[in-house]
């Protein structure tokens, strides 16, 4: 193996990652807080995590794709344990008789943005600066590797009381979602998972690149703006080429669960330039469509982020409530998600909205 350029992720980077990942979670993905606590402890014990470019992977390297799966509520009682995610990766090595070169998160948005770092700290291998969503999504088939029609199996699931499960074969990503979700529920509705291993070639072709760096940059921009009393939201938009959609106050929130997902809507009454108008946001775990006077002005897979107007931090669909002063922004989706096949998996129709995807961004984040 040739020498590969690595960057050591600093603790400051990790603090920024927690802020940036929560924003890229677009309202879902669970809070990165417990992951941050784990990493602070691991760093205090002397662990360090290396970040490597996906472009430096050899074609035949193996990359582990990890996520914590399940209900955020259960995660509040069974706290994310950094060793569990590492064990799920080891299981993949054992059943496939491979050694992983590196590890990456299935989604950079929310708490899962921290999982790869936790695994990497224990396994002593680097984290690849990439993920499979570029944000957060609720289901296993909503990934770039599913869009790429890569092999969906095997998937390992680990529960700390000693239950280990493998879904060895499924006909499709959607079946992987259904089968693994059932196992996860039996485990107590939370499991550490390692998805189908990817080759270096596959990560180079289908991974969404440099998203860890991106999340860290967003977090750093927000922190720097807050420290110097600048507008943190303008800092995010500058950093990411996003658009400000709406500024106002939450005046109504409606939530319901259907088929295990948290669905609902939030209504925002405009202030400042938006005074006199209202924006409605529909969500399914994440923010999916933004409607202004009945017209869809932004939609998935473009990222719709609801931010605290004062400090620029993300606000989740589980914690949004009346009276919050918020600013809604949109960030461009990774190109793979807006391709025709991408939209089949993560476009508005995948969430039940009969809308043709229209991006707010003229040249959606070219690869």
């Amino acid at each position, binding site marked *: 193996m040739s020498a590969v350029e690595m960057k050591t992720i600093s603790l400051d980077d990790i603090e920024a990652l927690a802020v940036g990942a929560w924003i890229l979670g677009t309202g879902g993905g669970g809070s990165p807080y*417990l992951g941050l*606590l*784990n990493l602070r*402890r691991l760093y205090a014990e002397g662990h360090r995590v290396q970040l490597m470019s996906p472009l430096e992977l050899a074609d035949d390297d193996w990359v582990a794709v990890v996520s914590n799966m*399940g*209900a*955020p*509520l*259960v995660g*509040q*009682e*069974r*706290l*994310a*344990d*950094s*060793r569990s995610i590492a064990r799920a990766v080891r299981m993949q090595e054992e059943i496939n008789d491979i050694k992983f070169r590196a590890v990456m998160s299935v989604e950079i948005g929310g708490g899962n943005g921290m999982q790869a770092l936790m695994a990497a700290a224990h396994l002593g291998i680097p984290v690849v600066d990439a993920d499979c969503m570029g944000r957060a999504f609720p289901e296993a088939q909503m990934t770039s590797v599913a869009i790429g029609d890569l092999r969906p199996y095997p998937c390992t699931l680990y529960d*700390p*009381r*000693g239950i280990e499960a493998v879904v060895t074969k499924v006909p499709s990503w959607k079946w992987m979602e259904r089968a693994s*979700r059932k196992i996860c*529920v039996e485990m*107590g*509705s939370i499991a550490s998972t390692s998805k189908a291993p990817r080759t270096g070639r596959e990560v180079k072709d289908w991974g969404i690149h440099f998203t860890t760096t991106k999340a860290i940059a967003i977090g750093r921009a927000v922190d720097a703006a807050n420290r110097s009393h600048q507008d943190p939201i303008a800092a995010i938009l500058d950093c990411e080429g996003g658009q400000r959609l709406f500024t106002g*106050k939450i*005046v*109504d929130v409606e*939530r*319901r*669960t259907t088929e*295990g*997902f*948290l669905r609902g809507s939030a209504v925002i*009454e405009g202030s400042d330039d938006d005074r006199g108008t209202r924006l409605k946001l529909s969500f399914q*775990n994440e923010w999916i469509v933004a409607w202004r006077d009945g017209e869809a002005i932004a939609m998935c897979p473009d990222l719709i982020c609801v931010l605290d107007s004062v400090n620029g931090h993300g606000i989740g669909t*589980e*914690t949004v*409530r*009346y*009276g919050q*002063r918020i600013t809604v922004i949109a960030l461009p989706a990774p190109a793979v998600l807006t391709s025709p096949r991408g939209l089949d998996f993560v476009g508005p129709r995948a969430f039940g909205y009969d809308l043709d995807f229209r991006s707010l961004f003229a040249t959606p984040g070219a690869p």
Partner: protein
Amino acid sequence: MKRIGIDVGGTNTDAVLIADDKVVHSVKSATTADVTSGILAALKALRSNPAAAVPVDAVVIGTTHFINAVVQRRHLQQIGAIRIGMPASASLPPFCDWPTDLAALVNGETFMLEGGHDYDGRPFMPLDIDGLKAAARAIKAKGLRSVAVASSFSPLDPSCETTAREILAEICPDVAVTLSHDLGRIGLLERENAALLNAALHDLAVTTVAAFRKAIADSGIDAPLFLTQNDGTVMQAEIATAFPVMSFASGATNSMRGAAYLSGLDDAMVVDVGGTTSDIGQLRHGFPREANAVVEVGGVRTLFRMPDLLSIGLGGGSHVEQNPVRVGPLSVGYRLTSDALVFGGDRLTATDIAVAAGLIDIGDRARVAHLPKSVIDAALADAHRQLEGDIDRMKTEAGDVPLLAVGGGAFLVPKRLAGISKIIRVPHGDCANAVGAAIAQVSGEADQVFRDLTRDDAIAAARGIAEERAVQAGADRKTLKTVDVEDMPIAYLPGNALRVRVRVAGAIAEPKIGAAA
């Protein structure tokens, strides 16, 4: 029914006697460093009014003593921490998110054992009884006198925690035990933190409650003692000894409850303008709306039942800057009566502006006669702007609602505010917090996950649990009213899982008052 309410604030200790639903007399007296001599002074001043020198049925105290101990890192004891729920959560042990200085002060030793439950009530792992016994022996050997126990999903099934208490009682019977399910909601780390803080305050709670009792006895009063808790209800003094953390935010809650009582309104916004800060909250069914979010106490994340309050740096003692004109956030605080212009000082304060504008008549008005009208108007406009924006932020419904303005600095609240239908000021509003203490009720709460029930059935089941808990805490069943219902569907759980939280409250049951004396 005659009750004395006492509120021990940062500057003043207020006392009030309420008889037959009327405020008989109220007094303000300076808070003292030892707290109890201030209480004694307030009681003596109150009782010097013949109408207030009558036998009373109860004395209710609201105090910030325990939260101050945490914030100031004083009078805290070393404790043992028992976490049940291994092998999950192992990498985030007790104290893992505490400020280092506070953890070093409090952490005697931690024990992490197998056990706990899943969200659906199934045992997570068999409870490690031998491990509990070994922990109890270690706690005894180390001489620790207070222990906190937290088990995963204990708000749903507390049996692991109660078993731990039984074992501790056998092996080290003199050790005080705090169980997390008695204090908090779902969220292991935050609930455990509440239990750890509570255990660390145990000795202080015992001595403080004894001192309160002595102050009452010394003032010639023979009546049971209650302490107010964060949610605007009371607990008997013995219970307060066991749960000091439950009094953490009682001051602001008392003033909101007092405002509701004095105005007869159960649903309104409340602003309590003090000397240094204004607290803004919302009354629903006569109780402050509670915070959903995590509340930090002395740098520790907790999930107490706390009122959802916004504190802003605006009060009667706020500095007024003139270029540009701005009120607060700095304040002269307890030096108001020496530093403000109208009292002969040289610092322009919000009180001086109010005197100059003719809103109140205190001190020497001639000393503010020179203030230009433009400064007076701009300062009042700035106070107006701050209050209007922040009151609106705390509203949870669209449309105009009434606002109760209480506290010593309530004169700063303008006559009209956007989003407010009318502004109500009440007699004795400056002692609303002591009134709130005097009229406090007893509550009970349930916070559980229900599956395969209709929403109505799940809420009814939760209400039944909350009512039983209120009766156990000393409430009169006939007077129980539901004060808060919240239901939250849960993502990724099967069986249409619904988390329901219900809180009920009612009058103190009569026989309990006698029994608690």
